């Protein structure tokens, strides 16, 4: 009797405890820094929007956590000729409304992305190379391009596939309300309250591995401190973009686990390569210098050697960074394992400067944004400190990004800090946009605000642009990187890092693209 009673009580309480933990385990609340502008996945390339789109919608191919491309709604792609690709689509995929996914949805989505109205950042350019789409059968699609486009698969894979039935003639409003927000993703939308939260539910008919948590609430909390406070108080289970200044504190907290990852966003210094007289380069007295020292490779090399990447990352960025010697991190297509970050070598730098004819340095103003990258203004100041060690008289000027980028594009600066994030999982775009010779017609080097120009490099890149053989293309990109970085076309400093923090008991499989995906949240092992 007594033992039975005990057993009963024990089992009851176990049930209760289990019940509680079970309920607890089923729902997860995310504190997300960014905010979707709309739930229409084609409306904006903006990161906050894409991050949310990715919860509900899927693409033909996708970059995995390491930014390596993996098939998703497409099972495979075949290159028929230089201009034609044939996609084999995944069968048995269902939309949230229960309808089947077919080639028709792909065609509809690609067209919709091209024709979207009123958007500042549409995907139109991704679909631009597409000349024709031909549905061979419901699961086979042929895409013909206007000219050879090696990046076609990656480009069309940026476009989320929406249901052609649900989204026909749908406006942004219809997506926001959930009416048209019908995808094939592992979660489906329950309710969105703009600027506040998104409620989602696991899609039980999902074609692939089902995510662990049934109910997910994403709270949009842009304030860093609030996210941290929410996590500490237990109202949030996981937060993204942990503020660097709180890393130390969270690391010491037993109940919190950090999940850092370095991203594919390279923070680098651009130098004015093109002009003989650069606007912000002066002598000791502040008069403009007749000669542009950045045209001398020794000077560029010296500058790179002056930067103490480790100190910068540990002190200014609280550890949230990874020193870099090239455009992309490991795992991204085109990464060259031989290119190491430049060593900190102030003595060597001074020697190089003296050799180049600047034993007493020169004057330069470093420009940078103050609200674009992680601690950008602080980083610039620290960089200035480093450069000062090379007897360079540095001034620092930072400004809001809206002013900064306009001026940077107009080439008003001599030495300036910029970031480039490779979002496609392919090193091609960075190399061609940032380092290739600027050409208004071909759009090459459109981010090359320093106007670095190296014909040898351009030749390889141009070849790679039309090379559809992937291993060959990878080799080309790696070779190109050796040329440009050996020449110090830009000074790569570090890959910005990012961290998630979870309460103990769950873990986050961090993603290099900084995206917070609900399906990546799993119970801790």
């Amino acid at each position: 009797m007594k033992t039975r009673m005990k057993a009963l009580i024990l089992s009851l309480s176990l049930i209760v405890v289990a019940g509680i933990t079970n309920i607890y385990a089923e729902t997860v609340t995310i504190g997300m820094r960014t905010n979707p502008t709309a739930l229409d996945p084609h409306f904006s390339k903006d990161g906050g929007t894409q991050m949310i789109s990715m919860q509900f919608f899927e693409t033909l191919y996708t970059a995995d956590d390491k930014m390596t491309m993996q098939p998703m709604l497409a099972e495979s792609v075949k290159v028929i000729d230089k201009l034609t690709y044939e996609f084999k689509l995944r069968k048995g995929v269902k939309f949230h409304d229960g309808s089947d996914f077919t080639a028709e949805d792909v065609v509809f989505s690609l067209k919709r992305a091209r024709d979207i109205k009123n958007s500042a950042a549409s995907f139109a350019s991704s679909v631009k190379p597409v000349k024709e789409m031909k549905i061979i059968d419901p699961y086979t699609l042929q895409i013909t391009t206007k000219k050879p486009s090696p990046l076609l698969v990656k480009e069309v894979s940026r476009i989320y596939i929406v249901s052609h039935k649900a989204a026909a003639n749908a406006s942004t409003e219809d997506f926001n309300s959930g009416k048209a927000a019908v995808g094939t993703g592992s979660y489906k939308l329950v309710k969105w309250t703009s600027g506040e939260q998104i409620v989602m539910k696991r899609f039980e008919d999902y074609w692939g591995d089902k995510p662990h948590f049934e109910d997910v609430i994403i709270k949009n909390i842009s304030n860093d401190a609030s996210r941290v406070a929410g996590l500490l108080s237990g109202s949030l289970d996981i937060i993204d973009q942990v503020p660097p200044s709180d890393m130390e504190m969270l690391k010491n907290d037993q109940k919190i686990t950090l999940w850092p990852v370095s991203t594919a966003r390279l923070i680098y210094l651009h130098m004015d390569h093109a002009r003989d007289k650069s606007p912000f380069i002066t002598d000791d007295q502040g008069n403009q210098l007749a000669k542009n020292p950045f045209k001398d490779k020794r000077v560029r090399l010296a500058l790179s050697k002056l930067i103490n990447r480790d100190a910068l990352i540990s002190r200014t960025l609280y550890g949230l960074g990874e020193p870099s010697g090239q455009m992309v991190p490991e795992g991204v297509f085109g990464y060259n394992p031989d290119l190491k970050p430049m060593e900190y070598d102030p003595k060597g730098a001074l020697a190089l400067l003296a050799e180049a004819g600047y034993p007493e340095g020169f004057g330069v103003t470093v420009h940078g944004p103050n609200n674009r990258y992680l601690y950008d203004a602080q980083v610039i100041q620290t960089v200035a400190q480093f450069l000062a060690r090379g007897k360079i008289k540095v001034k620092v000027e930072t400004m809001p990004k809206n002013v900064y980028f306009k001026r940077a594009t107009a080439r008003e600066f001599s030495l300036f800090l910029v970031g480039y994030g490779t979002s496609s999982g392919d090193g091609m775009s960075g190399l061609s946009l940032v380092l290739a010779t600027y050409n208004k017609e071909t759009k090459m080097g459109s981010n090359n605000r320093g106007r670095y120009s190296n014909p040898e490099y351009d030749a390889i890149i141009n070849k790679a642009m039309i090379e559809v053989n992937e291993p060959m293309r990878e080799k080309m990109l790696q070779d190109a990187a050796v040329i440009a970085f050996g020449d110090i076309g830009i000074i790569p400093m570090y890959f910005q890092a990012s961290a998630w923090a979870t309460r103990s008991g769950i873990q986050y499989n961090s993603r290099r693209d900084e995206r917070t995906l609900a399906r990546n949240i799993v119970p801790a092992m």
Partner: protein
Amino acid sequence: MTVFIVRRLMQSVLVVLVVSMILFAGIFAIGNPVDILLPPDATQEDREEAIQALGLDKPLLIQYGLFLANAVRGDLGTSFVHNVPSMQLILHRMNATLELALLALIFAVFIGIPLGMLSGAHPNTLLDRTLMTGSIFGFSIPNFWQGLMLIMVFSVFLRWLPSTGRGETGTILGIETSLATWDGIQHMIMPALNLSLYKISMVMRLTRASMRETLPMDFVKFARAKGLTGRRIIFVHVLKNIMLPIITVIGMELGSLIAFGVVTETIFAWPGMGKLLIDSINVLDRPVIVAWLMIVVLLFISINLLVDIIYSVLDPRIRLSDVKS
């Protein structure tokens, strides 16, 4: 009264026009929003397309004309960033801001006026001097730093109050408000206090000054000579007179409370209009900036009109002079 309203309305239209014109031109000068909206790896082609898509390629005057034409129909443009009507975006956030501003105003009135009256009734006493020095302190302390210190003391060291966000909201009388939940109230205390300290000081000084001005007036002495009690003299004769300037100032201050929300909302991460403005400035979301300011201008104008009407109800002299004119 008709003249009064007609005059005010005409002035208002003029103000709105002028402000919108200045704003439009000014924000046009800041820069091209496309640079911000596009991802950093966007191509020149993307840029040009975006510019066209947003209608930014048209001359400024035409853009302004289009804006005006739409504004008259109640459409203040669609956010570049959010692709929803700016108006909707702002109104959605307005609730939180107004709630905060009103609570701050209530603090200012119910703390400021009694203290000011106390001070004014006992001039040059220790109490008066302490209160007055306190009030100078109150409007000397920079608003944002005061917010930080509140957070430092009450959130970081004492851990009594949450430092950021709006907390849980509930619904009272169909209005979503933080005051409906305990959590919401906790979240609101510090921001409201932060917003109101300056106003408390101001109202206090104003009340005191009005008291000092009113108390020596003949009609107060006459009221005493009539044998009225001190209470009636203070709470009827004096209070009704000093309410006039106070109401004007409070009306004007409500406007500035909304504006100062920009700072407070930034510090306490209060999801109100102020933060929206700062965010929109940062991304140059022109339709939202312009709409924001238009709405605030309209808000100011209506508050002023309201204050003037209340004023004329309270002050019989105003009412009559208007009828006469």
